[in-house]
């Protein structure tokens, strides 16, 4: 129980810090909007093409903005060397991972909600009737991405070119989550929602189980010196 309480303390601290600076949220949101804008000019999709390419474009936007957010994940700790203080505390280091991961997840979800609304607006996506499924898929996809992203952000933080290292490590590992998310999103736009939907949602769940547990177990090895 203390494990979750410790993770909770770190989660709330991250929320509080972000609330003061709004660094991660604003950068993710702005970047996401810029990407959406660029997609419009790059592809100029008509309504049929939007249905075909929409899910892919949407998740690419999420991924790009997400990478930005992940890079900031440990930025605050790096600034004040406060990761040292966390390491010195009598807490399980896995709790540090869980707290940070959930905070990252929350920030990404907030930014994604705004981006989704803009996407639906600009590309005339008929989102409202499918909101329930869309939310579930966004949650599942972002959870996997946030989990892998958080642990790899911790890994990259120890390298010389940490900002560049993160996408190099993250994208290959997160690929299945992106595939699953794109396929699920595409499935809910076919009328009626294809049976592929059930399959890909299950896929996302399995991926999340594996790739939330693994980082939790591996995290302490990253913090040691």
């Amino acid at each position, binding site marked *: 129980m203390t494990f979750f309480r410790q993770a909770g303390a770190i989660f709330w601290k991250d929320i509080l810090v972000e609330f*003061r600076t709004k660094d991660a949220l604003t950068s993710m949101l702005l970047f996401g909007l810029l990407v959406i804008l660029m997609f419009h000019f790059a592809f100029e999709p008509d309504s049929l093409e939007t249905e075909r390419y929409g899910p892919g474009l949407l998740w690419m936007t999420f991924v790009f903005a997400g990478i930005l957010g992940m890079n900031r994940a440990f930025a*605050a700790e790096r600034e*004040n060397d406060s990761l040292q203080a966390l390491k*010195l505390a009598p807490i399980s280091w896995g709790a540090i991972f869980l707290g940070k991961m959930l905070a990252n997840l929350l920030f990404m979800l907030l930014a994604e909600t705004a981006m989704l609304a803009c996407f639906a607006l600009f590309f005339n996506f008929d989102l409202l009737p499918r909101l329930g499924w869309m939310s579930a898929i966004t949650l599942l996809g972002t959870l996997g991405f946030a989990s892998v992203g958080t642990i790899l952000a911790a890994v990259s933080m120890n390298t010389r070119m940490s900002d560049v290292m993160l996408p190099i490590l993250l994208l290959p590992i997160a690929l299945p989550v992106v595939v699953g998310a794109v396929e699920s999103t595409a499935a809910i736009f076919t009328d009626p929602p294809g049976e592929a939907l059930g399959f890909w949602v299950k896929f996302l769940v399995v991926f999340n189980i594996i790739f939330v547990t693994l980082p939790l177990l591996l995290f302490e090895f990253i913090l040691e010196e």
Partner: protein
Amino acid sequence: MASSSPVVRLENVEKWFGRTSALAGVNLAVRSGEFLIFLGRNGSGKSTLLRVVARIVKPNCGTVEVCGIDVLRHPEAGRERLGFVAHSSFLYRNLTATENLRFFAALYHLESPADRIREALRWVGLEGSAHRQVQGFSRGMQQRLSIARATLHDPEVLLLDEPFSGLDLEAAELLGAWLEGFVARGKTVLMATHDLEQGLKGARRWAFVERGRIAEEVTTGSDVEARERYKRFLKERRRDVL
């Protein structure tokens, strides 16, 4: 005040990073209530030594015990009894003093944290700034808050790594006085510094660290004498190098 079993004990501790040897066989026993200062040049290994005690650096071999606990096997239990103050404050700039302490109180699972926080702020003289964001603090104030953070959970042993760097004279004197008060309460202090001017007061034991080993120790005399001994020690070493 001093008991027989050591409160910090290192035995044959070695640590190397690839080609460089940071600690080359350290043996140390510190009794409760002692104020021990590690003196040494940059790169001599004093920082690594402190961090091994705090178990954020894992030694390649050797035993480390804090209050009788094998820190290598039970790191969390060991950390409960330690406080660490370093050159960086470990504080979150965008949070207030109180919010910072509240966070650390949660990490150390303290009961009645509000009281402890108030007490800690009063003790380091920062009650007036309890609700100011840390980024507005001077270096001296940050260091004081850092001490409040490190002692919030009432640790047995306080580890300080170059705490005087960057402090002005007044802040340094305040820190020195505070340290003496801390030791007077029966706590143990291990401090690493290469600053000869400040902070040697109050200590009763000085260990000169060189190339990952404790080369010499001074346990008698005043801090003035210890200072002289250390200057002589450095001169001798310089001759060897040349």
